[in-house]
Structure formats: structure tokens, C-alpha cells
């Protein structure tokens, strides 16, 4: 049996994929704060609603990145990101990813891939966006 993966050569520049949605709940936020010890953002706004910690949304996007209609990307390492937090999210908001390959270049140990990613809320507004850089394996037969 062959485990299907998406390799460096398989990535097409500009082809967009979307993930399913995920609702960010109070249990998600409480677990995130317990894990990280980051209590500062956990204060209600003027209306009494609590915000989702910004980095929790980014972390959830990391998981959603695997739930796209294509085989899993053969990532060797996550090299970095440039990221903007554009809008706060409230508990109960639902996010999904839209992403595409912006650039790729072959290197000695594989290929460097730059992914442009947007996190959208349930109204289709971009709430966070940026660029993620990965080291991706080349096809084993190449």
C-alpha cells in the first residue's frame, strides 16, 4: 500500500484550497490558556464577551491546514511565518483557512515553499493572514 503525499514537485503556484470550518469555543480557549499560561488576553470586552486568544486561532489554523482536499504535504520542517492579526474573534466564531502556494524553490535537502494563508470568519471576512514558509520533501523517486 502506498501512502499518498503531496511533494514539492506536486505544488502548483496559485492553486487555492479551503479547509472546513471550526468553531472556536470557550473550552478551546480555556485549554489553550492552561497549556500556555497566557492569561492576559482572557478579559471580557465592554459587552461582556470574551475574545479568542489570537495565537489560539493561529494554532487552530495549523490543524485546519491538514484538512484540505488534497494529500498531506510532505513537510520536513516549518521554517517561519509573517503574520497579521486583522480582527479579533469572539468565542463562538467559526474560522476556516484559504491558502495557496505563493512561491517555491528547490534547495539541497528538498524545497522551500511559501504559502499565503487567510483565516476567514463565518461572514467571509479575513481575520488573520500571512505567509508561512516550509521545507518540503521532494518526490522520493526524483
Amino acid at each position, binding site marked *: 500500500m502506498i501512502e499518498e503525499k503531496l511533494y514539492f514537485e506536486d505544488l502548483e503556484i496559485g492553486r487555492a484550497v479551503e479547509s472546513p470550518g*471550526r468553531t472556536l469555543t470557550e473550552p*478551546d480557549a480555556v*485549554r*489553550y490558556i492552561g*497549556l*500556555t*499560561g*497566557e*492569561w*492576559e*488576553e482572557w478579559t471580557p470586552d*465592554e459587552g461582556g464577551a470574551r475574545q479568542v486568544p*489570537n*495565537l*489560539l486561532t*493561529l*494554532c*487552530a489554523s*495549523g*490543524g*485546519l*491546514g*491538514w*484538512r484540505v482536499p488534497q494529500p*498531506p504535504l510532505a*513537510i*520536513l*520542517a*516549518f*521554517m*517561519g*511565518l*509573517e*503574520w*497579521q*492579526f486583522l480582527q*479579533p474573534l469572539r468565542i463562538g466564531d467559526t474560522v476556516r483557512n484559504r491558502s495557496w502556494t505563493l512561491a517555491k524553490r528547490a534547495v539541497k*535537502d528538498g524545497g522551500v515553499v511559501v504559502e499565503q494563508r487567510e483565516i476567514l470568519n463565518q461572514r467571509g471576512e479575513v481575520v488573520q493572514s*500571512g505567509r508561512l514558509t516550509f521545507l518540503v520533501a521532494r518526490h522520493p523517486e526524483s
Partner: protein
Amino acid sequence: MADQTQDGRRHFEEIEVGEEYLSPGRTVTEADIVIFAGLSGDYNVLHTDAEFMKSSIFGERIAHGLLGLAIQSGLLTRAMRPFATLAFLGLRWKFKGPIKIGDTIKVRAKVIAKRETSKPDRGAITLERQVINQRGEVVQEGETDLMVARRAL
């Protein structure tokens, strides 16, 4: 806007370029990685398949890069009085080396820029951060931009 002077938070005009902070250490455990996989939904083999990772460049499972980013964010809050932060604007971040199970990390941070904005009641602050392991190696580093309130006039 709520009165922010009572809670000890530091405002834009009180924060100086060049201020430095060093957090306590935290040992990253297998439990942290398992919990983070469940929370984020990122079960990639890099973090969850001990057998596969034996033949990888790392030789064993490694922490998610974003787990390291999240832990350092929490660690730094234990090293400094909080800023009167209105918004987390963005970050530029590099994952330079792996965080392995049992590694102990701490974060060193420095205020490197203050910038006026179009609104007079706030300003932007840039912090440079390095995540350092028990051998003194920088495993992650980058910059974070915050919008911080000024004191009400």
C-alpha cells in the same frame, strides 16, 4: 474606555526602547505536545509518530513550532508587568531549530521600537524575542508588534 490605571499595566509612554526581559524556564514535555496536537488538530507525523521520526533529520518527535511560539508568549507574561495592550498586530517569526521532548526553554525579549500612530491615544511597540534552550541555542526568534494605549490625558 475602562480605567486602566488601577491594574498596574504599563502604558505606551512608560515603555522604553532597550528594556529587556528574561522569562523563567519551562520544560516542554510529551504531554504538552499531545495536548497541543489535540487542541490544534495538528497530528502531523513530526509531532506524533515516534517510529517515523527515528529516521528523520531530527531523530525523534519534535514540538510543533506553533507550540513553542504559544509557550514563549505565556512565559514572557511571567517575566514582565503587562502592557496596556489594545491589540496584537502581527509577528515575524523564524523556527531555527527543534524543541524536543524534555528540552527546557526560556524567552529573552527586548523593546526595539516605539511608533506613533494616527490615533493619539495609542502607539505601536515592537518586541524582539529569542527562545533559548538549556544549551543556550536560539531555537526560535522573531518580532511581535503590539498596539498599546497611552494614559488618558
